[in-house]
């Protein structure tokens, strides 16, 4: 018998979703989508990347000005410039992302593991000096050394970050392996884990739910699964599957899915594939 528990959704339609090539949300789109997500009961909304400047910062200020119950998060790299951009928009929840696989650390940043830990520590302290609450992101965690992921989690926990994101950046996990990894990882991780899966092999939703089943507490999703390349785990599929498969509940209003999907598809200038689960017309 599974113990009945709740999982929290961190929706990133406005950040990772919008990073999908060709999708551009206007300031009004962002405000409308954030409001609809909030109304549907999403507790965490990752709203964007203030470091991009210009219109993005305008949109962020507008979203923050809305009377929303959800906590609104800004996405940052682990550097002062990104964090200052977020602070100046008025954010109080900051997500700070660092790569954790050697592939990313060495080839993208041309640095080493110690440098990343140091940079993360400085960034968390810097963000906290403005009174912000920090969540930490571990990019490419699925291709990283598990012990190093835990080291990053330890640093984050010691400094007072509130949860850590495990990102399957290129979508290379499969559900049976994901379940095994999280069964081992969760008891050893000092922070609640958020899973952030990508859909390169069509497995994002399945990987998300089995990770939650194995004890992860939060899941990243996007409406209709939009996002870079083949996208992210779809909000509507994850929430429904969690309920059906494991009886894990979320306080999210399932009746809102169709409206959310229409809103996001319209703002993205895309149409829903008729065979898309939950919201596709062929399934109605």
């Amino acid at each position, binding site marked *: 018998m599974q113990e009945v528990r709740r999982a929290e959704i961190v929706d990133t339609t406005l950040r990772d979703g919008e990073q999908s090539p060709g999708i551009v949300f206007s300031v009004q789109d962002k405000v409308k989508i954030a409001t609809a997500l909030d109304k549907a009961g999403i507790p965490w909304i990752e709203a964007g990347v203030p470091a991009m400047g*210009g219109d993005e910062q305008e949109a962020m200020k507008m979203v923050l000005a809305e009377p929303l119950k959800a906590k609104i998060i800004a996405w940052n790299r682990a550097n002062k410039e990104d964090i200052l951009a977020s602070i100046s928009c008025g954010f109080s929840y900051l997500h700070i992302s660092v790569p954790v696989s050697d592939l990313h650390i060495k080839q993208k940043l041309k640095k080493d593991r110690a440098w990343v830990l140091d940079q993360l520590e400085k960034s968390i302290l810097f963000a906290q000096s403005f009174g912000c609450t920090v969540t930490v992101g571990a990019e490419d965690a699925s291709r990283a050394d598990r012990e190093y992921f835990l080291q990053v989690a330890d640093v984050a926990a010691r400094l007072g970050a509130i949860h850590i994101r495990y990102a399957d950046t290129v979508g290379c996990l499969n*559900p*049976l392996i994901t*379940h095994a990894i999280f069964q081992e990882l969760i008891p050893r991780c000092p922070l609640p884990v958020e899973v952030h899966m990508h859909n*390169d092999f*069509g497995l994002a939703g*399945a990987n998300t739910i089995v990770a939650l089943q194995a004890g992860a507490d939060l899941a990243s999703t996007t409406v209709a699964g939009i996002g*870079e390349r083949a996208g992210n785990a779809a909000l509507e599929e994850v929430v429904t599957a969690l309920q059906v*498969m494991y009886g894990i509940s979320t306080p999210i209003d399932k009746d809102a899915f169709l409206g959310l999907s229409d809103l996001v598809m319209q703002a993205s200038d895309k149409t829903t594939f008729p065979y898309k*689960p939950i919201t596709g017309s062929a399934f109605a």
Partner: protein
Amino acid sequence: MIWIDQTLQEGLARGLNRGELKQILSILQKLHVETSDVIVADWEQKGFSELTRFEQERLRGITNGTAEEVERAHALGFKKIIVSCAPHLGQGLISQVCAALFAAKKMGMKVSLCIENASQFSLEEIGFLWRDIPIDGIESFIYSDRDSLLDPLSTARIMAFLRKKIPVTLEFHGHNAYGLASANGLAALQTGVKNIAVAVAGIGLHGHAAIEELIMARKSLLGEGSGVNSQLAQLCSQMISLIGLNVPSSKSIIGRDIFAHESGIHVDGVVKNPQLYEAFSPEEVGLERRLVIGKHSGTSSIQAKFRQWNQILPVADAQILLKQVRELAVAEKKEVDDNALWGMYQAMISKRSKRFSTIEVKHQRFVAGV
């Protein structure tokens, strides 16, 4: 390893003519898919005549578990059929289904038994159902998750158990109400099930596992089977357009935009090493990598774009263009195409050269003492 195609049935249901169905069968052949399931009643209802030899080899007729329909399938020329049924909990196979199995056997057809609502039963109950089967020589037992009740963990557990208990070929036929069909198909594959129901892009009633996802997951994630057709994306798109649909641009494995990189961080990474942000290379499936310039671009993306055009763009110029790119992308709510970007660059250059020439003219005047 046998993929059992469900694409053809959806084409039949959506009113494709026989020529179009034949094209689908031919494309499937290129993907080494030799068996397609079609509902016999649908085939008959479309008024299609007897099966050709090509069709006989490839089609397996789904019957509703009555002797009458088995006979109709036989009359149409089906050599392989499925006796499909959805038993009630607590009851065994009803006599009608047993009669259908007998009839099929008597007519010399290859018979598969499908329990449509198998995932509603416990493993013990499935064992009882199996013992009810009145004949020997059944080709395969099809375990169907009609109501999408399974997650990959239960699929793996159930398939591992049934593979030991059931002495004929085990097939897994999953559905996709909650987006888990491909994951369940992959889990069945991982536990040694050889026959998996699939459809292009996961189409079909209640959805199926997507063939392109399983083909690539098997190769890249399980390290089995290198025989991926390097035209996979094109072949799947052809089938989807025969059915009257378009492949969504972000559809995993086969979508046109899955190798289009836009965000500054991703482009910067992909330029350094594509593996940083790609799980497999575009060539493996017959797609192309594309650098998209838009709202999320960074200066290094714009510089990378110009390098593709054999043009060295100084970072200061990239910053000027980036500002204009973002403004245009936001105003038009879409990416900035190559022509528009080149236009911005030309405008920037010509504005600059005009300014230079004005300065030059003034200088000459000064020298000339005018």
